[in-house]
Protein backbone atom coordinates (compact mmCIF):
# COMPACT_ATOMS: atom_id res chain seq x y z
CA UNK A 1 0.00 0.00 0.00
CA UNK A 2 2.80 2.42 0.98
CA UNK A 3 4.71 1.62 -2.21
CA UNK A 4 1.57 2.35 -4.21
CA UNK A 5 1.16 5.78 -2.68
CA UNK A 6 4.82 6.55 -3.28
CA UNK A 7 4.48 5.57 -6.95
CA UNK A 8 1.29 7.58 -7.19
CA UNK A 9 3.03 10.63 -5.76
CA UNK A 10 5.92 10.19 -8.18
CA UNK A 11 3.47 9.84 -11.09
CA UNK A 12 1.65 13.03 -10.15
CA UNK A 13 4.71 15.24 -9.72
CA UNK A 14 6.85 13.91 -12.58
CA UNK A 15 7.65 16.73 -14.99
CA UNK A 16 7.25 14.71 -18.22
CA UNK A 17 3.80 13.66 -17.08
CA UNK A 18 2.55 17.24 -17.26
CA UNK A 19 3.67 18.22 -20.77
CA UNK A 20 2.88 17.10 -24.32
CA UNK A 21 -0.39 15.98 -25.92
CA UNK A 22 -0.73 13.05 -23.48
CA UNK A 23 0.35 15.17 -20.55
CA UNK A 24 -1.77 16.01 -17.53
CA UNK A 25 -1.87 19.69 -18.53
CA UNK A 26 -3.47 18.96 -21.89
CA UNK A 27 -5.85 16.33 -20.48
CA UNK A 28 -6.88 18.76 -17.75
CA UNK A 29 -7.73 21.44 -20.32
CA UNK A 30 -9.75 18.91 -22.34
CA UNK A 31 -11.61 17.77 -19.23
CA UNK A 32 -12.43 21.35 -18.25
CA UNK A 33 -13.51 22.14 -21.81
CA UNK A 34 -15.96 19.21 -21.95
CA UNK A 35 -17.32 19.94 -18.47
CA UNK A 36 -17.72 23.70 -18.73
CA UNK A 37 -19.18 23.70 -22.25
CA UNK A 38 -21.69 20.98 -21.35
CA UNK A 39 -22.72 22.77 -18.17
CA UNK A 40 -23.13 26.08 -20.02
CA UNK A 41 -25.31 24.51 -22.72
CA UNK A 42 -27.34 22.70 -20.05
CA UNK A 43 -27.80 25.97 -18.14
CA UNK A 44 -28.89 27.76 -21.33
CA UNK A 45 -31.58 25.12 -21.82
CA UNK A 46 -32.56 24.44 -18.22
CA UNK A 47 -32.63 27.92 -16.68
CA UNK A 48 -35.38 29.37 -18.93
CA UNK A 49 -37.42 26.17 -18.55
CA UNK A 50 -37.09 26.15 -14.76
CA UNK A 51 -37.89 29.87 -14.51
CA UNK A 52 -40.92 29.53 -16.77
CA UNK A 53 -42.30 26.54 -14.87
CA UNK A 54 -41.73 28.31 -11.56
CA UNK A 55 -43.21 31.60 -12.77
CA UNK A 56 -46.34 30.19 -14.38
CA UNK A 57 -46.77 27.23 -12.05
CA UNK A 58 -47.52 25.16 -15.16
CA UNK A 59 -45.65 21.95 -15.82
CA UNK A 60 -44.64 21.46 -12.19
CA UNK A 61 -45.31 17.76 -12.72
CA UNK A 62 -42.62 17.73 -15.41
CA UNK A 63 -40.08 19.53 -13.24
CA UNK A 64 -40.57 17.18 -10.31
CA UNK A 65 -40.45 13.97 -12.35
CA UNK A 66 -37.54 15.15 -14.44
CA UNK A 67 -35.39 14.98 -11.32
CA UNK A 68 -35.99 11.32 -10.62
CA UNK A 69 -35.77 10.47 -14.31
CA UNK A 70 -32.40 12.24 -14.47
CA UNK A 71 -31.20 10.34 -11.43
CA UNK A 72 -32.35 7.01 -12.84
CA UNK A 73 -30.87 7.40 -16.33
CA UNK A 74 -27.64 5.39 -16.60
CA UNK A 75 -25.21 7.85 -18.21
CA UNK A 76 -22.79 5.18 -19.42
CA UNK A 77 -25.62 3.54 -21.35
CA UNK A 78 -26.68 6.87 -22.78
CA UNK A 79 -23.15 7.69 -24.01
CA UNK A 80 -22.74 4.28 -25.63
CA UNK A 81 -26.21 4.47 -27.19
CA UNK A 82 -25.73 7.91 -28.76
CA UNK A 83 -22.22 6.82 -29.78
CA UNK A 84 -23.54 3.76 -31.65
CA UNK A 85 -26.21 5.91 -33.28
CA UNK A 86 -23.99 8.80 -34.37
CA UNK A 87 -20.55 7.30 -34.87
CA UNK A 88 -17.20 8.55 -33.68
CA UNK A 89 -17.59 12.16 -32.61
CA UNK A 90 -17.78 14.19 -29.42
CA UNK A 91 -21.56 14.47 -29.83
CA UNK A 92 -22.48 11.47 -27.68
CA UNK A 93 -20.41 12.76 -24.80
CA UNK A 94 -21.83 16.27 -24.98
CA UNK A 95 -25.42 15.03 -25.40
CA UNK A 96 -25.07 12.70 -22.41
CA UNK A 97 -23.43 15.37 -20.25
CA UNK A 98 -26.08 17.96 -21.09
CA UNK A 99 -28.86 15.42 -20.48
CA UNK A 100 -27.27 14.68 -17.13
CA UNK A 101 -27.01 18.33 -16.08
CA UNK A 102 -30.40 19.61 -17.25
CA UNK A 103 -32.61 17.90 -14.60
CA UNK A 104 -30.57 19.18 -11.63
CA UNK A 105 -30.70 22.75 -12.93
CA UNK A 106 -34.40 22.68 -13.90
CA UNK A 107 -35.56 21.19 -10.58
CA UNK A 108 -33.42 23.47 -8.43
CA UNK A 109 -34.47 26.55 -10.40
CA UNK A 110 -38.08 25.49 -10.03
CA UNK A 111 -37.58 24.83 -6.31
CA UNK A 112 -36.00 28.27 -5.92
CA UNK A 113 -38.93 29.92 -7.70
CA UNK A 114 -41.55 28.16 -5.58
CA UNK A 115 -39.66 29.15 -2.42
CA UNK A 116 -40.30 32.82 -3.24
CA UNK A 117 -42.86 34.21 -0.80
CA UNK A 118 -46.17 34.67 -2.71
CA UNK A 119 -46.81 37.91 -0.82
CA UNK A 120 -43.60 39.39 -2.20
CA UNK A 121 -44.75 38.44 -5.69
CA UNK A 122 -48.18 39.98 -5.07
CA UNK A 123 -46.60 43.15 -3.70
CA UNK A 124 -44.49 43.48 -6.84
CA UNK A 125 -47.56 43.03 -9.00
CA UNK A 126 -49.50 45.48 -6.85
CA UNK A 127 -46.83 48.08 -7.49
CA UNK A 128 -47.60 47.74 -11.17
CA UNK A 129 -44.69 45.55 -12.24
CA UNK A 130 -45.21 43.59 -15.41
CA UNK A 131 -44.85 39.83 -15.54
CA UNK A 132 -41.32 39.91 -16.98
CA UNK A 133 -40.29 42.55 -14.42
CA UNK A 134 -41.61 40.43 -11.56
CA UNK A 135 -39.75 37.45 -12.98
CA UNK A 136 -36.41 39.16 -13.60
CA UNK A 137 -36.31 41.73 -10.80
CA UNK A 138 -38.05 39.94 -7.95
CA UNK A 139 -38.34 36.19 -8.40
CA UNK A 140 -34.98 35.54 -10.07
CA UNK A 141 -32.83 37.33 -7.45
CA UNK A 142 -34.68 35.60 -4.62
CA UNK A 143 -34.37 32.21 -6.29
CA UNK A 144 -30.68 32.65 -7.13
CA UNK A 145 -29.17 30.81 -4.13
CA UNK A 146 -31.08 27.63 -4.96
CA UNK A 147 -30.35 28.07 -8.65
CA UNK A 148 -26.65 28.25 -7.79
CA UNK A 149 -26.98 25.05 -5.77
CA UNK A 150 -28.45 23.38 -8.85
CA UNK A 151 -25.61 24.64 -11.04
CA UNK A 152 -23.02 23.37 -8.56
CA UNK A 153 -24.66 19.96 -8.42
CA UNK A 154 -24.83 19.81 -12.21
CA UNK A 155 -21.18 20.83 -12.61
CA UNK A 156 -19.97 18.16 -10.17
CA UNK A 157 -21.96 15.48 -11.96
CA UNK A 158 -20.68 16.64 -15.33
CA UNK A 159 -17.01 16.76 -14.23
CA UNK A 160 -17.38 13.24 -12.84
CA UNK A 161 -19.07 11.93 -15.94
CA UNK A 162 -16.79 13.66 -18.46
CA UNK A 163 -14.45 10.79 -17.54
CA UNK A 164 -16.58 8.69 -19.87
CA UNK A 165 -15.34 10.67 -22.90
CA UNK A 166 -12.19 8.56 -22.71
CA UNK A 167 -14.27 5.39 -22.83
CA UNK A 168 -15.42 6.28 -26.34
CA UNK A 169 -11.81 7.14 -27.29
CA UNK A 170 -11.66 10.86 -26.52
CA UNK A 171 -9.44 12.78 -24.15
CA UNK A 172 -9.87 14.29 -20.74
CA UNK A 173 -8.62 12.95 -17.45
CA UNK A 174 -10.59 9.73 -17.94
CA UNK A 175 -7.86 8.77 -20.43
CA UNK A 176 -5.56 7.78 -17.54
CA UNK A 177 -8.29 5.72 -15.87
CA UNK A 178 -9.22 3.74 -18.98
CA UNK A 179 -5.69 3.41 -20.39
CA UNK A 180 -4.50 2.35 -16.96
CA UNK A 181 -7.26 -0.25 -16.65
CA UNK A 182 -6.41 -1.61 -20.12
CA UNK A 183 -2.67 -1.73 -19.34
CA UNK A 184 -3.19 -3.08 -15.81
CA UNK A 185 -1.29 -0.02 -14.58
CA UNK A 186 -2.89 0.71 -11.22
CA UNK A 187 -0.75 3.79 -10.55
CA UNK A 188 -2.00 5.46 -13.72
CA UNK A 189 -5.62 4.51 -12.95
CA UNK A 190 -5.36 5.94 -9.45
CA UNK A 191 -3.57 9.05 -10.73
CA UNK A 192 -6.44 9.76 -13.14
CA UNK A 193 -9.04 9.16 -10.44
CA UNK A 194 -7.27 11.47 -7.98
CA UNK A 195 -7.02 14.21 -10.61
CA UNK A 196 -10.75 13.98 -11.50
CA UNK A 197 -11.66 14.07 -7.82
CA UNK A 198 -9.45 17.11 -7.22
CA UNK A 199 -10.93 18.96 -10.21
CA UNK A 200 -14.48 18.24 -9.00
CA UNK A 201 -13.78 19.38 -5.45
CA UNK A 202 -11.88 22.51 -6.55
CA UNK A 203 -14.58 23.58 -9.03
CA UNK A 204 -17.29 23.03 -6.40
CA UNK A 205 -15.37 25.09 -3.85
CA UNK A 206 -14.82 27.83 -6.45
CA UNK A 207 -18.56 28.01 -7.20
CA UNK A 208 -19.35 27.93 -3.48
CA UNK A 209 -16.98 30.87 -3.03
CA UNK A 210 -18.58 32.73 -5.91
CA UNK A 211 -22.00 32.06 -4.40
CA UNK A 212 -20.90 33.42 -1.03
CA UNK A 213 -19.38 36.51 -2.63
CA UNK A 214 -22.57 37.20 -4.62
CA UNK A 215 -25.03 36.63 -1.80
CA UNK A 216 -23.18 37.91 1.22
CA UNK A 217 -26.26 39.73 2.47
CA UNK A 218 -28.75 36.95 2.04
CA UNK A 219 -28.97 33.79 4.08
CA UNK A 220 -28.67 30.72 1.89
CA UNK A 221 -31.74 28.48 2.21
CA UNK A 222 -29.52 25.45 1.84
CA UNK A 223 -26.34 25.89 3.83
Amino acid at each position, binding site marked *: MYELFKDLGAWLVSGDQWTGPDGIGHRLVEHLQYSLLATLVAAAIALPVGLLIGHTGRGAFVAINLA*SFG*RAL*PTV*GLVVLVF*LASGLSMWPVYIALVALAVPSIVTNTYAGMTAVDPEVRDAARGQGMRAHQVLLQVELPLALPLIMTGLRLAL*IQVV*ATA*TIAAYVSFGGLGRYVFDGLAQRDLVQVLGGAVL*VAVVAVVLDLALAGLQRALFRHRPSPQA
Partner: protein
Amino acid sequence: MTVDWSWIRDHTDDLTTLTLAHLQAALSAVALGLLISLPLAVVAHRIRPLRGLLLGLSNVLFTIPSIAVFVLLLPVSGLTRTTTVIGLTIYTLVVLLRNTVEGLDSVPAKTKEAAKAMGTRPLRTLLTVELPLALPVIMAGVRIATVMSISLVSVATYIGDGGLGQLFTDGFQRNFPTPVIVGVVLTLLLALVADALLVTLQYVLTPWTRRRRSA
Protein backbone atom coordinates in the same frame (compact mmCIF):
# COMPACT_ATOMS: atom_id res chain seq x y z
CA MET B 1 -31.19 1.95 -34.49
CA THR B 2 -33.38 -1.13 -34.29
CA VAL B 3 -33.84 -3.61 -31.49
CA ASP B 4 -32.98 -7.21 -32.27
CA TRP B 5 -35.80 -8.94 -30.43
CA SER B 6 -34.41 -12.43 -30.98
CA TRP B 7 -31.29 -11.42 -29.04
CA ILE B 8 -33.51 -10.54 -26.08
CA ARG B 9 -35.35 -13.87 -26.36
CA ASP B 10 -32.06 -15.79 -26.46
CA HIS B 11 -30.64 -13.95 -23.47
CA THR B 12 -33.50 -13.85 -20.96
CA ASP B 13 -31.53 -15.97 -18.48
CA ASP B 14 -28.50 -13.67 -18.66
CA LEU B 15 -30.73 -10.62 -18.37
CA THR B 16 -32.41 -12.03 -15.26
CA THR B 17 -29.03 -12.79 -13.67
CA LEU B 18 -27.69 -9.32 -14.46
CA THR B 19 -30.84 -7.61 -13.23
CA LEU B 20 -30.73 -9.50 -9.94
CA ALA B 21 -27.01 -8.77 -9.48
CA HIS B 22 -27.70 -5.13 -10.29
CA LEU B 23 -30.54 -4.91 -7.79
CA GLN B 24 -28.57 -6.74 -5.13
CA ALA B 25 -25.63 -4.32 -5.39
CA ALA B 26 -27.90 -1.25 -5.26
CA LEU B 27 -30.06 -2.48 -2.39
CA SER B 28 -27.09 -3.67 -0.31
CA ALA B 29 -25.63 -0.19 -0.67
CA VAL B 30 -28.83 1.52 0.47
CA ALA B 31 -29.23 -0.89 3.40
CA LEU B 32 -25.61 -0.36 4.46
CA GLY B 33 -25.98 3.38 3.96
CA LEU B 34 -29.01 3.42 6.26
CA LEU B 35 -27.22 1.33 8.85
CA ILE B 36 -24.32 3.81 8.90
CA SER B 37 -26.25 7.06 8.52
CA LEU B 38 -28.97 6.45 11.14
CA PRO B 39 -26.64 6.50 14.18
CA LEU B 40 -24.55 9.27 12.59
CA ALA B 41 -27.70 11.33 12.00
CA VAL B 42 -28.78 10.91 15.62
CA VAL B 43 -25.31 12.08 16.71
CA ALA B 44 -25.42 15.02 14.27
CA HIS B 45 -28.91 15.93 15.45
CA ARG B 46 -28.10 15.79 19.19
CA ILE B 47 -24.54 17.13 19.23
CA ARG B 48 -24.59 20.42 17.33
CA PRO B 49 -20.82 20.90 16.88
CA LEU B 50 -20.55 17.53 15.11
CA ARG B 51 -23.41 18.34 12.78
CA GLY B 52 -21.52 20.65 10.41
CA LEU B 53 -18.53 18.33 10.41
CA LEU B 54 -20.51 15.19 9.52
CA LEU B 55 -22.68 16.88 6.89
CA GLY B 56 -19.68 18.68 5.40
CA LEU B 57 -17.68 15.47 5.24
CA SER B 58 -20.48 13.60 3.47
CA ASN B 59 -20.81 16.52 1.03
CA VAL B 60 -17.13 16.29 0.12
CA LEU B 61 -17.43 12.52 -0.39
CA PHE B 62 -20.35 13.19 -2.72
CA THR B 63 -18.22 15.58 -4.80
CA ILE B 64 -15.74 12.83 -5.67
CA PRO B 65 -16.74 11.31 -9.01
CA SER B 66 -18.20 7.81 -8.78
CA ILE B 67 -15.68 6.27 -11.15
CA ALA B 68 -12.89 7.77 -9.04
CA VAL B 69 -14.43 6.27 -5.90
CA PHE B 70 -14.61 2.83 -7.47
CA VAL B 71 -11.07 3.10 -8.78
CA LEU B 72 -9.64 4.44 -5.52
CA LEU B 73 -11.13 1.44 -3.71
CA LEU B 74 -9.28 -0.99 -5.99
CA PRO B 75 -6.16 -1.27 -3.79
CA VAL B 76 -8.43 -1.88 -0.78
CA SER B 77 -10.99 -4.35 -2.05
CA GLY B 78 -9.89 -5.27 -5.58
CA LEU B 79 -12.02 -6.09 -8.61
CA THR B 80 -14.92 -7.42 -6.56
CA ARG B 81 -18.54 -6.92 -5.67
CA THR B 82 -17.34 -5.43 -2.35
CA THR B 83 -15.79 -2.49 -4.20
CA THR B 84 -19.06 -1.80 -5.99
CA VAL B 85 -21.09 -1.93 -2.80
CA ILE B 86 -18.67 0.22 -0.77
CA GLY B 87 -18.52 2.80 -3.56
CA LEU B 88 -22.29 2.99 -3.85
CA THR B 89 -22.70 3.12 -0.06
CA ILE B 90 -20.46 6.18 0.09
CA TYR B 91 -22.81 7.82 -2.42
CA THR B 92 -25.98 6.98 -0.50
CA LEU B 93 -24.52 8.46 2.69
CA VAL B 94 -24.83 12.11 1.76
CA VAL B 95 -28.53 11.86 0.85
CA LEU B 96 -29.47 9.56 3.73
CA LEU B 97 -27.54 11.50 6.35
CA ARG B 98 -28.87 14.89 5.27
CA ASN B 99 -32.48 13.73 5.08
CA THR B 100 -32.38 11.83 8.37
CA VAL B 101 -30.96 14.85 10.20
CA GLU B 102 -33.56 17.10 8.55
CA GLY B 103 -36.28 14.61 9.47
CA LEU B 104 -35.21 14.54 13.11
CA ASP B 105 -35.02 18.35 13.11
CA SER B 106 -38.60 18.53 11.81
CA VAL B 107 -40.03 16.79 14.89
CA PRO B 108 -41.71 19.54 16.97
CA ALA B 109 -39.95 20.29 20.26
CA LYS B 110 -43.28 20.14 22.09
CA THR B 111 -43.82 16.55 21.01
CA LYS B 112 -40.44 15.60 22.45
CA GLU B 113 -41.17 17.53 25.65
CA ALA B 114 -44.50 15.75 25.99
CA ALA B 115 -42.76 12.38 25.70
CA LYS B 116 -40.21 13.49 28.29
CA ALA B 117 -42.95 14.71 30.65
CA MET B 118 -44.65 11.33 30.43
CA GLY B 119 -41.42 9.80 31.68
CA THR B 120 -40.32 8.24 28.38
CA ARG B 121 -36.59 7.56 28.32
CA PRO B 122 -34.50 9.28 25.58
CA LEU B 123 -33.80 6.06 23.62
CA ARG B 124 -37.46 5.09 23.69
CA THR B 125 -38.46 8.60 22.63
CA LEU B 126 -36.06 8.33 19.72
CA LEU B 127 -37.39 4.96 18.59
CA THR B 128 -41.11 5.42 19.20
CA VAL B 129 -41.62 9.17 18.74
CA GLU B 130 -38.84 10.91 16.83
CA LEU B 131 -37.93 8.34 14.17
CA PRO B 132 -41.55 7.56 13.19
CA LEU B 133 -42.33 11.28 12.88
CA ALA B 134 -39.16 11.81 10.87
CA LEU B 135 -40.02 8.89 8.59
CA PRO B 136 -41.52 10.85 5.67
CA VAL B 137 -38.36 12.94 5.27
CA ILE B 138 -36.10 9.90 5.82
CA MET B 139 -38.07 7.95 3.22
CA ALA B 140 -37.65 10.78 0.73
CA GLY B 141 -33.89 10.30 1.19
CA VAL B 142 -34.17 6.52 0.83
CA ARG B 143 -36.05 6.96 -2.44
CA ILE B 144 -33.41 9.28 -3.89
CA ALA B 145 -30.58 7.04 -2.66
CA THR B 146 -32.21 3.94 -4.16
CA VAL B 147 -32.86 5.46 -7.58
CA MET B 148 -29.35 6.96 -7.65
CA SER B 149 -27.70 3.68 -6.65
CA ILE B 150 -29.58 1.71 -9.28
CA SER B 151 -28.38 4.15 -11.92
CA LEU B 152 -24.80 4.21 -10.60
CA VAL B 153 -24.23 0.44 -10.48
CA SER B 154 -23.45 0.51 -14.20
CA VAL B 155 -20.46 2.80 -13.60
CA ALA B 156 -18.87 -0.12 -11.72
CA THR B 157 -18.81 -2.02 -14.99
CA TYR B 158 -15.39 -0.43 -15.64
CA ILE B 159 -13.97 -2.32 -12.71
CA GLY B 160 -15.59 -5.54 -13.85
CA ASP B 161 -18.82 -5.71 -11.88
CA GLY B 162 -21.62 -3.46 -13.03
CA GLY B 163 -24.75 -5.59 -13.23
CA LEU B 164 -26.74 -4.34 -16.22
CA GLY B 165 -23.82 -2.04 -17.02
CA GLN B 166 -22.07 -5.03 -18.57
CA LEU B 167 -24.62 -4.81 -21.36
CA PHE B 168 -23.26 -1.35 -22.22
CA THR B 169 -19.69 -2.65 -22.54
CA ASP B 170 -20.92 -5.65 -24.51
CA GLY B 171 -22.91 -3.53 -26.96
CA PHE B 172 -20.10 -1.00 -27.29
CA GLN B 173 -17.41 -3.58 -28.02
CA ARG B 174 -19.50 -5.40 -30.62
CA ASN B 175 -21.01 -2.23 -32.10
CA PHE B 176 -24.43 -3.75 -31.38
CA PRO B 177 -27.06 -1.40 -29.90
CA THR B 178 -29.62 -3.96 -28.66
CA PRO B 179 -27.95 -4.84 -25.33
CA VAL B 180 -27.36 -1.14 -24.65
CA ILE B 181 -31.01 -0.25 -25.25
CA VAL B 182 -32.13 -3.20 -23.13
CA GLY B 183 -29.71 -2.17 -20.37
CA VAL B 184 -30.94 1.44 -20.30
CA VAL B 185 -34.61 0.41 -20.35
CA LEU B 186 -34.16 -2.24 -17.63
CA THR B 187 -32.24 0.21 -15.42
CA LEU B 188 -34.97 2.83 -15.78
CA LEU B 189 -37.69 0.23 -15.11
CA LEU B 190 -35.86 -1.07 -12.06
CA ALA B 191 -35.53 2.44 -10.65
CA LEU B 192 -39.17 3.22 -11.38
CA VAL B 193 -40.47 0.02 -9.75
CA ALA B 194 -38.21 0.40 -6.70
CA ASP B 195 -39.38 4.00 -6.28
CA ALA B 196 -43.05 3.01 -6.56
CA LEU B 197 -42.56 0.24 -3.99
CA LEU B 198 -40.92 2.67 -1.58
CA VAL B 199 -43.82 5.13 -1.99
CA THR B 200 -46.21 2.31 -1.16
CA LEU B 201 -44.10 1.29 1.83
CA GLN B 202 -44.14 4.85 3.13
CA TYR B 203 -47.91 5.04 2.62
CA VAL B 204 -48.33 1.92 4.73
CA LEU B 205 -45.85 2.99 7.42
CA THR B 206 -47.15 6.52 7.96
CA PRO B 207 -50.95 6.37 8.18
CA TRP B 208 -51.12 9.74 9.96
CA THR B 209 -49.77 11.67 6.97
CA ARG B 210 -52.69 10.40 4.88
CA ARG B 211 -55.28 11.91 7.16
CA ARG B 212 -53.51 15.25 7.09
CA ARG B 213 -53.35 15.29 3.31
CA SER B 214 -57.03 14.52 2.83
CA ALA B 215 -58.10 17.14 5.38
